[in-house]
């Protein structure tokens, strides 16, 4: 792992640590990229959890891997592979969702699609005869060596994705909460579903260039799931989801900088820790409310 190559001393003074963190351009780039990715993942992830499309979202994030592998095999820029395959994946998933078969048939189709995508990715990597360590970085990402150009592209894509979601937010929310009523109300439910998968594919393709294909999902699902636990209100929920994603990304990057362990471990562990805390807190809270109600009834 490349991350192990740099190891910095932690001074336990947050200000000096922060200053040291920001002296290196690669770290500034990483923090900027992480910020953009976190905002995008927080927004689209919130809708993904609302629409109960975690399996589809995970499949899309996995499809980024064969995309990158195919691009390096064909000698194309990696971004072409990421976007091309994630776009195709969104099309296929929309087709599967559109066929409106039973839940079990849908999950079988999504699962087969995902496995096929991974199999293709491995095939391309084997044909490429590249160093097998390349697989690790395609799957698990690296936050080192992010260029200014990449940050600019990230920003453009994120702006496009987030504004698309913002424009369609109201009908998308309506269609996600109650598809039947929304359809009766004249909302183009299928079109919205397909559009959302495309935006999800877009953000996944962008995110996986930094986090790797396997870890995008952590940023998409966990902060959003935590936000859904905390509030059912859409705007507050999205804000919370973005804030959580930002928090874990920043802290994860900083921790990875000061230790020898990979950033993916910190980001996933921090976000899962928050999720567990919230779940436990809610469970305790509802038990306390229940005992209070019992006491009231007894009195």
């Amino acid at each position, binding site marked *: *792992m490349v*991350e*192990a190559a740099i190891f910095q001393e932690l001074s336990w003074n947050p200000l000096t640590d922060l200053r040291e963190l920001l002296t290196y351009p690669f770290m500034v780039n990483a923090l900027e990229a992480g910020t953009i990715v976190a905002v995008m993942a927080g927004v689209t992830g919130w809708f993904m*959890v609302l629409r*109960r499309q*975690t*399996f589809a979202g*995970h499949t899309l994030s*996995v499809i980024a891997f064969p995309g990158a592998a195919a691009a390096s095999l064909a000698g194309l820029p990696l971004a072409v592979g990421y976007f091309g395959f994630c776009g195709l994946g969104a099309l296929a998933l929309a087709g599967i969702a559109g066929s409106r078969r*039973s*839940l*079990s*048939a*849908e*999950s*079988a*189709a*999504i*699962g*087969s699609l*995902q*496995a*096929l995508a*991974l*199999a*293709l990715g*491995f*095939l391309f990597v*084997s*044909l490429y005869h590249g160093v*097998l*360590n390349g*697989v*690790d970085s395609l*799957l*698990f990402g690296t936050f080192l060596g992010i260029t200014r150009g990449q940050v600019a592209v990230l920003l453009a894509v994120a702006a496009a994705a987030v504004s698309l979601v913002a424009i369609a937010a109201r009908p998308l929310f309506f269609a996600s909460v109650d598809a039947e009523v929304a359809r009766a109300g004249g909302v183009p439910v299928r079109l919205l579903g397909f559009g959302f998968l495309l935006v999800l594919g877009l953000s996944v393709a962008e995110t996986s260039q930094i986090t790797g294909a*396997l*870890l995008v*999902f*952590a940023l998409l*699902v*966990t902060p959003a*799931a935590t936000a*859904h636990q905390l509030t059912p209100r859409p705007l507050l929920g999205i804000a919370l989801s973005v804030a959580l994603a930002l928090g874990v990304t920043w802290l994860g990057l900083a921790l990875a900088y000061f230790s*020898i*362990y*990979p950033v*993916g*471990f*910190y*980001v*996933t*562990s921090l*976000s*899962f820790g928050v*999720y567990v805390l919230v779940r436990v807190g809610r469970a305790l809270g509802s038990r306390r409310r229940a005992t209070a109600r019992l006491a009231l009834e007894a009195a």
Partner: protein
Amino acid sequence: MFAHEFMRNALIAGSFVGLACGLVGYFVVLRAQVFAGDALSHVAFTGALIAAVLGLNIVAGLFAATILGGIVMGILGDKARADDVTIGSLFAWTLGLGVLFLSIFTTQDSAGNGTAGVRVLFGSIFGLSTADVRISVVLAVLAGALLLTIARPLLFASLDAAVAEAQGVPVRALGLGFLALLGLVAAEATQAVGALLLLGLLAAPAGAAHRLTTRPYRGLVLSALFSVGSIWIGLTLAYVFPTLPPSSMIIAAAAGIYLLAIASTTTRDPRAVWLRLANG
């Protein structure tokens, strides 16, 4: 092809792994639990790497992790059907742990172990020893026998949990037991096609079987046949063209069978497809 020992080992182990995957996969698809299989593949990856870092037997770590993972998912889920968001959050973290152990493992011992992660992720069916084959045959037979014993009540519980519960079928215990069994089979499949691709062996042959028949026992047989068939096709392809990785070919064969099943059930008349395409 059969003259090589590694090929014979791969075919024998692969057939039994395929058999177990096809049988269990039929129920996985029926119960719409493919996502649980997806989660178990990440658990398998992390379990194997934890065992590697601690210097334990990788295969033992694999089995322990996936069976435990199946049970945890069963407990977490309501009525032993874990919900997607909880599973998703959990396995995202599991994967993060896996990455941590991968980095510890690669820094701990850089000589020759750099590809350990890739081996776990994508399998090494041509590298199985005779002892490995014996273990996987025994476990596959065990898993298949266990599944066939509980097949009837499990089928009932999967199709209509409420009625089954009223009839005295232990729905929750069956669900938990099934997920543990799924964990066992997932670990088996990890050795053949790797942690990331085992989902294909669980979902694609069973998906094809569900497309072709609604009758459960015929479906189970079909699913097992498709699964074993894709392993044979995949292994043969990888043998004939040595540059092609066997695990990719196995999954490609399984996906091909699934696509054929979809195509053959979508329309009986090929002209209708062309007409529909021509008319937009």
